[in-house]
């Protein structure tokens, strides 16, 4: 049963608070998985079964081979043929066409004899990410076919064969980007947001006053608040890793111990951020708004989970650098996906440690000021 020390009495109380409320438990344990699966499957930069239309005036061996290979790949599906270039625009407007493949006339002949056969790839540029990925896939496949075809005809391939290879993520899976991002988001959400809300709640209900009048040191109260959230974070960390390995097929190539160490450091940073918020916020509502607007939104927008930071204006790139989650996500990518060691993430670890120190100092100062 409950031990006689104030610390364990408090920790037990925190667990009651969290696990008695079915919704809180559900949100804390299930939501991270939902987020991962949603971002991993639904909001993905991968292309699967993109619908292709073909304009093929040549109808020769080479074009047929290209079309068949595209059809055979899991990325594309040949939807049909068009007869004139004028049709293309109206078809794009309907919205379900991913790409149109336009071959030049006498494709095989030109390729074999002049070495200058042309194929045009038309995609919908209003979604640049998608368009880029589709053309990259198609170019790679067409390049392969051309090579094969020329070799089979006994002529030396005259085109410069471009071989694009994506290091660490050879099949360009979205999960490689999603998993570290969701990890950063979830840990931030649970540690920073929930801790700040739970402390603000004590202030709101007046129980904090009673605790401050009791002989228990404030540090004990605060530490006991963090224990359940550290535990929940570690559980979520594990479920997210399992889901990413077995469902999203994103392997953990690096050292697992180093990974957990990194995660613990980030948990510490998030907790101190939560403490800082709770020192300022007087009610749960305020704590929620501050954590939501100032912490969650920037993480979602500026961490590169959904939008690539590299293509943002310089100001936002600079802003992204002061978000702790971004450094964590960067380091996770290195350890988890690239399988790099301690040396490779020492800079990120240093930055995160510095942030932790700064945040702890700031929140201590804020707490002291409030007590005077």
């Amino acid at each position, binding site marked *: 049963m409950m031990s006689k020390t104030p610390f364990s009495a408090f920790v037990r109380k925190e667990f009651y608070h969290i696990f008695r409320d079915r919704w809180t438990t559900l949100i804390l344990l299930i939501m991270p998985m939902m987020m991962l699966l949603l971002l991993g499957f639904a909001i993905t930069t991968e292309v699967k079964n993109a619908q292709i239309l073909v304009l093929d005036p040549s109808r020769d061996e080479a074009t047929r081979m290209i079309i068949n290979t595209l059809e055979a790949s899991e990325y594309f599906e040949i939807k049909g043929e068009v007869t004139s270039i004028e049709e293309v625009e109206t078809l794009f407007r309907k919205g379900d066409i991913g790409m149109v493949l336009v071959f030049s006339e006498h494709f095989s002949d030109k390729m074999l004899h002049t070495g200058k056969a042309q194929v045009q790839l038309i995609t919908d540029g209003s979604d640049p990410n998608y368009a880029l990925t589709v053309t990259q896939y198609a170019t790679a496949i067409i390049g392969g076919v051309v090579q094969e075809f020329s070799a089979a005809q006994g002529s030396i391939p005259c085109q410069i064969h471009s071989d694009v290879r994506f290091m660490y993520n050879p099949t360009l899976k979205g999960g490689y980007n999603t998993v570290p991002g969701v990890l950063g988001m979830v840990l931030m959400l649970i540690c920073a947001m929930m801790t700040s809300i739970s402390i603000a709640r004590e202030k709101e209900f007046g129980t904090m006053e*009673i605790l401050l*009048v009791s002989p228990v040191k404030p540090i004990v109260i605060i530490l006991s608040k963090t224990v359940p959230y550290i535990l929940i974070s570690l559980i979520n960390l594990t479920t997210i890793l399992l889901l990413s390995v077995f469902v999203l097929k994103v392997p953990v190539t690096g050292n697992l111990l180093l990974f957990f160490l990194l995660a613990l450091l980030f948990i510490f940073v998030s907790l101190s951020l939560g403490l800082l918020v709770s020192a300022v916020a007087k009610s749960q509502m305020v704590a929620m708004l501050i954590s939501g607007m100032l912490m969650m939104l920037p993480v979602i927008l500026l961490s590169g989970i959904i939008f690539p930071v590299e293509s943002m204006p310089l100001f936002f790139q600079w802003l992204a650098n002061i978000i702790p989650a971004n450094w964590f996500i960067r380091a996770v990518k290195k350890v988890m996906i690239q399988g790099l060691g301690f040396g490779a993430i020492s800079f990120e670890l240093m930055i995160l440690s510095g942030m932790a120190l700064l945040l702890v100092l700031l929140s201590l100062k804020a707490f002291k000021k409030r007590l005077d």
Partner: protein
Amino acid sequence: MMIQPNDNYSIMVEDLTKRFGSFTAVDHISFEVKKGEIFGFLGANGAGKTTAMKMLCGLSKPTSGNALVAGFEVGKDNEGIKKNIGYMSQRFSLYEELKVWENMRLYAGIYGIPEKQIKERIELMLESLGFQNEINTFVKSLPVGWKQKLAFAVSIIHNPKIVFLDEPTGGVDPASRRQFWELIYQAADKGITVFVTTHYMDEAEYCNRISIMVDGKIAVIDKPQTLKMQYHGRNMDEVFRKLARNAVRS
């Protein structure tokens, strides 16, 4: 300057002052509270009584002046004070999502009561409150009057020398208020000094002695009976109105 400790008094205050910028919330107040006394600390809203009480509980640092609470100096030995006082505020201060006995256990743990004694104390407390059947009830489903009684019982779970009650009966119906005061008398009989603030003037008459704060200063301090004679009031309400009439702050 230190106050000389005196065994007859549990609270001794001398020139205690608290300023917030240019605003003097508590202005050189001095008084004593005897051991085992029920002391009513009255005043209009904004008169400075909550600020004064917070200083005595070690929640706020005095700007100047001295005070001894349970023999410990305010501002210097707050740890000593915290171990020897109980506190209950007007805002309900138990955890609503916890059961009655879980709240009791939590506060027993907070005040470091040895494990072996906890069960016995909880049973004793339940009995004196008549709560034997409510042991597994969630606090949020208790009526307000019961919650206040429970909060009071929990605030003296560690047998403190003094208990500070900040408007403990706010929003409670008259019948429950009378029951609540029975608990206060029981505590006083056990030798616990009771320091209580209240809005209800009928409750002021239940106190052994009262002080009335006006504009950060203590205007009067005496037995309710003496004050009624001195200010020609039929009840404490009239005494209070006569004194508060001259207040600048309201």
